[in-house]
């Protein structure tokens, strides 16, 4: 089983609120602690478990990002992935969902794979579009919001979340799966894993090395203005419970909910 896991480096979502540079209109990544997207850790955990349960498996990490994105890849290798590839190129700064999908598709199409696994959405951009676009470009089916996964006689048994419950789905390979963010508890890298990761190679590629040029990589949207969040008015504090209940009833009525 050859599994490709897409990994993204993001500003640590548990520590920071994202800042945007008013001149470049891009997210500020300098001076901000960066980590592997927590959703990707969950996805990698799912991939490692499937690989452990399936003989002759190989887990390869693929990422797009600045040079510093080797850090989450190193972490993923320490968790147990076998190899890692990073596409890093100045021309990719500010890439939108479709550009990102095209870059990932160009890299992944050169490697043999049975399964591609991604998060359902990233914690910073959260467009939720890259997985479906990637699958579409590669011409493989995709199944979103997977929470359980097994492999039996070359057929994938999948449980996926829906708006009101869950579905059981069967699929052949190759396929792309997006993993639900609560599906697994990611493991911590062991000391042995960290040592072994030092001997694993991270391949870094530029866009020309994956057969693309900057002309291929134009965003569909041009940001013309960033609107800052509204400063919230001071909250109204109520210390009497009965008054609180009345206030809730008033708000529900004003909002047409009662």
């Amino acid at each position, binding site marked *: 089983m050859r599994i490709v896991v897409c990994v993204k480096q993001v500003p640590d*979502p548990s520590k920071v609120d994202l800042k945007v540079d008013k001149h470049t209109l891009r997210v500020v990544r300098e001076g901000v602690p960066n980590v592997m997207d927590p959703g990707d850790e969950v996805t990698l955990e799912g991939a490692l478990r499937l690989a452990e349960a399936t003989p002759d498996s190989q887990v390869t990490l693929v990422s797009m990002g600045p040079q510093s994105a080797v850090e989450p890849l190193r972490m993923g290798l320490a968790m147990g992935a076998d190899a890692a590839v990073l596409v890093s190129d100045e021309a990719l700064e500010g890439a939108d969902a479709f550009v990102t999908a095209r870059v990932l598709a160009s890299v992944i199409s050169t490697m043999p794979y049975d399964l591609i696994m991604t998060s359902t959405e990233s914690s910073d951009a959260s467009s939720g*579009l890259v997985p479906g676009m990637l699958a579409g470009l590669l011409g493989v089916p995709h199944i979103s919001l997977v929470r359980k996964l097994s492999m039996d006689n070359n057929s994938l048994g999948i449980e996926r979340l829906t708006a009101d419950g869950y579905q059981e789905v069967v699929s052949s390979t190759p396929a792309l799966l997006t993993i639900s963010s609560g599906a697994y508890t990611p493991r911590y890298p062991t000391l042995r894993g960290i040592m072994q990761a030092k001997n694993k190679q991270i391949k870094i590629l530029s866009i020309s090395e994956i057969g693309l040029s900057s002309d291929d990589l134009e965003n569909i949207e041009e940001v013309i203005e960033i609107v800052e969040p509204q400063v919230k008015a001071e909250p109204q504090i109520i210390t009497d419970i009965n008054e609180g209940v009345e206030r*809730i009833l008033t708000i529900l009525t004003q909002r047409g909910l009662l």
Partner: protein
Amino acid sequence: MSNDIWIYGEHSNGRLAENTRDILSKASSMGRTSLILLGREADRVVDEACEAGASEIIVDADPRYDEYLAEPHARTLYRLIDQGTPPRILLFTFDPPSRDIASRLASKLGTGALSNVLDVSEEDGLTVAAVQWGWSYTAKCRLKGKNPHILLIRQGAFSDHSLKMANANNVGGITRYISMFELDETYPRVIRSTVERKPGPTLTNARLVIAGGRGMGSADNFRLIEELVAMLDGAIGTTRAAVDAGWRPYTEQIGQTGASIRPDVYIACGISGAVHHMKGVRGSKSIIAINKDPDAPIMRMADVGIVGDAVELLRLLRERLQERLGR
């Protein structure tokens, strides 16, 4: 150039999704609209779609749309676009099934797509406002590229739209197709669907969400919230801490690793307001927090902070509602 707007109609249990209705009413004020309804129950939604103001309705009731996930939907939309003049804009909701379809279609067409859209306008070309980095900022963007511009609209973005009028006279026609797509049978197939939640709005499309955290004290106390959301047609939510404690299922979790909600009113009961929780509630129009601790972070981020025991307050609220609703 075509100024037509197409809308992919999300529907379930014979009802049009509320967000689709909102999108339809906004789009009707911008140009000629075509609503595309696919799936076993598509025909049941047609009357409602006429009332909601679609200029034209396209229907294909092949049951395989419900069995084979996104791909048949994307293939049919591709074919409809490819065989005629592409519309200028193609609108989807931002719900997961629509995301899957829109993203596959966008890569087939080579057009790309934009998520988290809050507003669409024609000024010096097509301009949209979109949430781009969580709820930290919104960005105004000019759209480049070719038709159709594929946009995914955030729940509630168009719910305040003044054009809520029903205009059934506008319907130009209903076009019915039979099985617009071909599909290899080895495609991933749904073999069973299980409904786990009670009827009512979902966490992401509810206009009212009441959530409880560790401050609820016990799993039992969440019954109060269940009763209240049933009375008010809202949805129940929770925090990671309460999920970790085994009090509530993960499907109800709000925040960084759970659902992002955007209701008109969000009531947080016994929730301290950890960063990862607050990221999921930023889009709420009105936040009411109930907490014993006046210094809990959520009290600073709420519109109204009530200092007190959440369970006690919810019991009082239930009494007052029973009086008002006569139950």
